């Protein structure tokens, strides 16, 4: 085997890139919500779980076409995001951050338990398998490619929305000075509710892509929640570009680290990198 060009290393790097896309998409909604509302949705991955169940039930049980089921799921999770804000976040908007963490943490356990009661602990899956894309010796998941594309598309769409529209500008403005928003004629409550719905919709979009690759079960959030949160912190909480960059760095550590050492070490190296960054730049790579 050639030491200079290793096709398997290339496969690991490219798979890392695809994983990065997936993680970037995951971090998008969490970052948006934190950036605007200044509250961390610890239960973000559990919203994604709800979205995955929505796709599953609409498509498998009620035989909706997959694309329609996915669109509906995005709507469902957007509604859940809105509901989360109205029922849970709004009363603690001005509370200590630790209390905000505790309530959203409570929602995490609530959603897990509710999903166990409502859907059972059985693993569900769509039974849809996308073909893989072959490149000589290398082979890649089509579902990951789609997720990668959706992450890029999502970031670009979000960027255009945030920089070109009044509403988007208001969403950015409110994170910089909440108190004077009424002087601009903006109702902060409405912006928060809207941002929550948008964050929910992004969680829903992530759900649509995860459901193509992962089995659905009430504890699926545990696989993605912590890593999503780490990536957001790594990139600078609330900084969407930072989260995007951090996702790709993190994924490369996991993929290439896992390739050169044991898979476990890939994660360990990624976490060591995370801790090192926290010492070097406590507010994240692109944090201010």
């Amino acid at each position, binding site marked *: 085997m050639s030491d200079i060009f290793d096709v398997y290393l290339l496969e690991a790097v490219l798979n890392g890139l695809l994983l990065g896309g997936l993680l970037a998409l995951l971090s998008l909604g969490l970052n948006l919500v934190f950036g605007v509302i200044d509250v961390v949705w610890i239960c973000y991955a559990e919203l994604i779980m709800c979205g995955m169940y929505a796709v599953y039930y609409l498509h498998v049980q009620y035989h909706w076409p997959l694309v329609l089921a996915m669109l509906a799921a995005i709507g469902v999770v957007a509604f859940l995001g809105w509901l989360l804000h109205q029922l849970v976040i709004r009363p603690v908007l001005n509370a200590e951050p630790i209390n905000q963490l505790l309530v959203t943490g409570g929602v995490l356990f609530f959603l897990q338990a509710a999903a166990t009661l409502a859907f059972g602990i059985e693993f569900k899956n769509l039974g849809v398998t996308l073909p893989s894309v072959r490149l000589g010796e290398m082979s890649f998941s089509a579902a990951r490619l789609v997720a990668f594309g959706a992450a890029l598309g999502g970031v670009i769409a979000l960027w255009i929305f945030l920089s070109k529209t*009044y509403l988007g*500008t*208001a969403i*950015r*403005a409110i994170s*910089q*000075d909440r*108190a*004077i*928003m*009424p*002087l*601009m*004629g*903006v*109702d*902060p409550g409405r912006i928060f509710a809207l941002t929550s719905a948008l964050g929910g919709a992004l969680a829903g979009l992530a759900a649509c892509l995860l459901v193509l690759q992962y089995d659905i079960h009430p504890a699926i959030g545990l696989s993605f929640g912590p890593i999503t949160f780490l990536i957001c912190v790594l990139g600078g909480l609330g900084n969407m570009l930072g989260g995007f960059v951090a996702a790709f760095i993190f994924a490369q550590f996991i993929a290439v680290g896992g390739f050169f050492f044991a898979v476990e070490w890939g994660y360990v190296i990624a976490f060591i990198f995370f801790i090192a960054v926290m010492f070097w730049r406590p507010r994240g790579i692109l944090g201010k």
Partner: protein
Amino acid sequence: MLRVAELSAGYGGFQALFDASLEVNAGEAVAVIGPNGAGKTTLLRVISKLISPSAGDVTFEGRSLAAVAPHDVVARGIAHVPENRRLFPRLTAEENLRMGAYTSRRTYAERLAQVYALFPRLRERRHQPAGTLSGGEQQMCAIARALMSGPKLLLLDEPSAGLAPVVVQSIFELVRRICAEGYTVLIVEQNIRQVLKVVSRAYLLEAGRIVRSGSADELRTAPEIQKAYLGL
């Protein structure tokens, strides 16, 4: 146009304003002057509904603002340039102006042209984050942002505060021009000497109470004001 009747307000247990009454007529420029901590900022904050009064009422164009939501005040025609300017530091100057036009989007392009005509400096700086502008430019941007909503009444809170003396001159020059453009202005200032050159009438607010009112000339020549505030 604006009538403030026996207004009281405060923060928690602290009362900052006692039975204050004043009036601003259309086309007028009126100042509320007084020392630091007299309740001037509170007065403006009650008018634009950032805080609720404990007693009294504010009417604008004959209608009470009591039942109006804070974010609907702008649409009624009142724009407020808050104390310390309060620009959105990471938005560009032009994005700040766009936020000012949030409730009147259709006239955005037209107003933007007017505002840039009034503040050519802002046009040069329009793609710069507002946080990187100089103090004077930031004040211009804050005033311009308020004008973007096409207000009938402009509330200005200490436009000269924290600025270098040379810049203070040019800001008051700007305020004078705005008044000359026909805007109705209610301005709150500590820099009494300067502000009385710009407005036609003024109220003196001390420890939360209106203690005197009159034309700018009257107040400028009143001995107690000359003694206490103008250092004469």
